[in-house]
């Protein structure tokens, strides 16, 4: 049996290449970490100094220094809540349809295509669409509700994909066990698969929230660029000064940053932009950590040994 002749030079070269390539890959990967740390560092370094309790709670000032971002922060959170209120049931339903009901075929393919196209749609176009259809034709005006609907369009595909993946991640055996027991499909979906899928659903949803939270282009023309004076003691959702009136206009944090960056004439405009950016990034960071924590806790809760009924 003739053995393969080992070309030692070639082997040596291969090993050197291996080392070089590894170093390169590691360097590039670390470059990403460096970019991230740089970005975070920059944003936080510039902004943290300006963040204080009063900055987070007071109203902005057009001319004078010392304005806050209270209403904007509230608007962002409330808009996020409204958006999720609309998106989650819709996205969940469509995602379940895609993963459990749709038969592979032309229609399913078409829907997937739709979801993909929608999710890579420029958000500015969605904003304009929102202006003409939601704000004008549906007569919802510049309002939280308009903004939430525009963000829904923007967020729905993501939610569908998250749901589809979460359900696809449920072991096939779980479904089979339910079927063999003679349960209806819907019962299996809601009582057996959903609990297993919930951790990844939560994680995905919270990460998606981060994106919604930072969106500006789609909101300029829908939720608007101003906030009426809010009366935080008035919780009647129909009153125009109530913070939770869904038909009032609302400038979000991201929109405000954009506005201050572009048109701000207050003497501390730069610091306000920096502070607000830092707040935005910190919120996204919190969302991330929360997603991770909740996802892990829920996963443990659902599968852990100490689970109570």
């Amino acid at each position, binding site marked *: 049996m003739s053995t393969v002749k080992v070309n030692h030079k070639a082997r040596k070269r291969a090993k050197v290449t291996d080392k070089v390539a590894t170093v390169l890959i590691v360097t590039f990967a670390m470059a990403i970490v460096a970019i991230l740390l740089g970005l975070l560092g920059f944003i936080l370094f510039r902004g943290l100094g300006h963040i204080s309790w009063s900055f987070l709670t007071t109203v902005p000032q057009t001319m004078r220094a010392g304005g806050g971002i209270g209403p904007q922060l509230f608007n962002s959170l409330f808009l996020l809540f409204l958006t999720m209120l609309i998106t989650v049931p819709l996205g969940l339903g469509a995602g379940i349809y895609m993963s459990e009901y749709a038969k592979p075929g032309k229609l399913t393919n078409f829907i997937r295509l739709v979801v993909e196209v929608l999710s890579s749609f420029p958000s500015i176009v969605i904003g304009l669409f929102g202006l003409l259809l939601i704000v004008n034709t549906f007569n919802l005006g510049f309002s939280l509700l308009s903004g939430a609907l525009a963000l829904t369009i923007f967020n729905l595909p993501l939610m569908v994909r998250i749901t589809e993946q979460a359900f696809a991640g449920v072991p096939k055996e779980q479904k089979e*066990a*339910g*079927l063999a027991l*003679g349960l*209806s499909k819907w019962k299996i979906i809601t009582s057996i698969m959903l*609990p297993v899928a919930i951790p990844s659903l939560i994680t995905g949803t919270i990460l998606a929230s981060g994106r919604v939270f930072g969106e500006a282009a789609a909101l300029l023309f829908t939720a608007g660029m101003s906030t009426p004076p809010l009366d935080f003691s008035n919780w009647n959702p129909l009153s125009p000064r109530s913070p939770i009136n869904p038909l009032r206009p609302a400038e979000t944090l991201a929109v405000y940053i954009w506005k201050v960056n572009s048109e701000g004439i207050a003497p501390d405009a730069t610091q306000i932009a920096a502070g607000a950016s830092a707040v935005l990034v910190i919120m996204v960071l919190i969302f991330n950590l929360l997603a991770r924590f909740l996802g892990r806790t829920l996963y443990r809760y659902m599968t852990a040994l100490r689970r109570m*009924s």
Partner: protein
Amino acid sequence: MALPFSTEDLSIYYGEYQAVKNISMSFPAQSVTALIGPSGCGKSTFLRSLNRMNDEIAGSRTTGHIWMDGVDLTASSTDVIKLRQRIGMVWQRPNPFFKSIYENIAFGPRYYGTKNRKQLDEIVESSLRKAALWDEVKDRLKESALSLSGGQQQRLCIARALSVTPQILLLDEPASALDPVSTGKVEELISELKDELRIVIVTHNMQQAARVSNYTAYFYLGKLMEHGETDTIFTNPTQQSTQDYIMGRFG
């Protein structure tokens, strides 16, 4: 309760590929029928078709008939969900729900309308007893089913299948992932259960087939090569291929 249960000219296709070829066989009451044959010969496919679980696989198609009590189960008018309540199933890998031990068993009966807590408790206890698991878990019914060992999980799955009082139980290699002790327990369980219901079991272990079954069917390349009393098949097969397989010449 000895309603007839049989297949007639049953074929199953995956797209163009015919995995099961014109199988006609019947499953006598109060007995265990073992399906044996080399990997890929269509045992699981055949078994799954008996409670229409194969419907769930996109692209699969069935022709022929499955008769139960004079009704053709393959008819499109059959209420598969009701059907599956009558024909239970257990797989090779235990698949308990990600729920407590109690919930795993109570889930089915509750769905069928038993809301009364006491009745449920009774069903849970009797199902677990039948699956020879009661003594091991009676103090930890609220714990997650996943905290059980593999063998216990498998018996839990059998208990779960029993909780809705099926008339037929389909088992697909129920012991092949278990340790010797658990295997022994599951085999014992099968022998006991056969007095109450009909059992169809797929196994790779010839000795297991010989030990637990009354009838054996040998499948090869989607065809039913031989079917008869287990003793006859093992001692005196008519086909060379059956003998080769049983003797471990391949597979």
